[in-house]
């Protein structure tokens, strides 16, 4: 498994980018998900939707070109692209909850065998709040979890059953880590691809959830 922090982030972002299609409306979470936009194939143009009320968000503006009224959902200066639309929070979540967002990419603290996700609080320790995550996971057409395969101490994040408060009872669709691509299926977690320089044993040893290993297990089609 690759340990280098920057490479890990690059692998995950590159692989998630392959899941997006030209014309998709996509909501990217803070952190690794934000990087996905940097790795889209040249013929894939997506519309970024941001909870704070914009469809067609662009990247960070050049220094000196910030607009105090144009930020991303993390509160950092952002830009808007030609064709962008600005709206209020009810409309923004109408897009999200109403199933008009093709995909949401977000981080996780835990994902379990049933495809449930916990990503908004650690009771007694860390309580940032759910923000828009519960609506996104409940309403987006496709939910992609992008995260490091394990916690910093090496313990598993893909586990038999979430012990932290759930974000939604809606099952997520896909997990992308630096070590694996895992699809949530009716029968359980299907291991589809192995990350660069990663063995099947490494994935199994760093995952406590049961994985279905198919005969046609593939390497991730990316280079770093």
């Amino acid at each position, binding site marked *: 498994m690759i340990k280098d922090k920057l490479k890990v982030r690059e692998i995950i972002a590159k692989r998630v980018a392959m899941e997006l299609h030209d014309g998709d409306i996509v909501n990217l979470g803070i952190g690794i998900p934000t990087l996905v936009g940097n790795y889209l194939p040249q013929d894939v143009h997506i519309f970024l939707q*941001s*909870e*704070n*009320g*914009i469809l067609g968000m662009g990247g960070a503006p050049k220094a000196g070109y910030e*607009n*105090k*009224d*144009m*930020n991303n*959902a*993390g*509160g950092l200066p*952002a830009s*808007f692209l030609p064709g962008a639309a*600005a*709206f*209020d*929070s*009810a409309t*923004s*979540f109408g897009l*999200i*909850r109403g199933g008009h967002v093709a995909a949401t990419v977000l981080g996780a603290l835990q994902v379990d065998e049933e495809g449930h996700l916990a990503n908004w609080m650690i009771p007694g320790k860390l*309580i*940032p*709040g*759910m*923000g*828009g*995550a*519960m*609506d996104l996971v*409940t*309403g987006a057409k496709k939910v992609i979890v992008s995260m490091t395969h394990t916690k910093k101490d090496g313990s598993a994040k893909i586990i038999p059953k979430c012990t932290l*408060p*759930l*974000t*939604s*009872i*809606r099952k997520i669709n896909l997990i992308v880590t630096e070590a694996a691509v895992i699809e949530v299926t009716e029968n359980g977690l299907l291991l589809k691809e192995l990350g660069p320089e990663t063995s099947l044993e490494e994935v199994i040893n760093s995952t406590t959830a049961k994985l279905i290993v198919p005969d046609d297990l593939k390497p991730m089609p990316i280079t770093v």
Partner: protein
Amino acid sequence: MVDKLLKKEDFIEKLFDGAILMIGGFLGDGTPELLIDEIVKNGIKDLTIIANDTAFPGKGIGKLIDARLVKKAIVSHIGTNPETQKQMIEGTMEVELIPQGTLAEKVRAGGFGLGGILTPTGLGTIVEDDKQRCEIDGKEYLIEPAIKADIALLKAKRADELGNLTYNLTAQNFNPLMAFAAETTIVEVEELVPKGGVSPNEVRTPHAVVDFLVRGSCK
């Protein structure tokens, strides 16, 4: 005609200790900073704040938290403000967390004369605790009651003297929803223009729900 323009010194007369306030903004973007500064200066306390978040220390609603004027915060997110988390853990401030889309709809319902909304968000999570479920066409939803406030403090880009409002980009967020949901709606505006100075097509909040306007700065 009623003159809605309020000097910032007179604005504070409209507030009172223990008030329930809705405050527009998303991490400070679209928050009426000048009105917040006046509240801090006058030490209006024991406030209940309904807002998306508590921004950052020293910014927007964060200034009210820094000054310990907030008794309860009803918000979707406090992750950007360690001071909010500190006061919550100390037990000096109560925090009620609500999913952002649900919060927007609860506010909208409050202002639009609805008793509440039905949403799938939060089903089967701790958000469901103490709430009722209902089933429609075989699908389950949570019943989320509407919320209202004593006073809404909003920020708009431009207003005409009647109080017709426009907003700018991501500074819009909760502002147009909250405008309907409070007994008294007070708006800090960057530009004030004569009646007719905002095209009917541009108006995002009609003047009927705006009680007072306070001239802000454009920075």
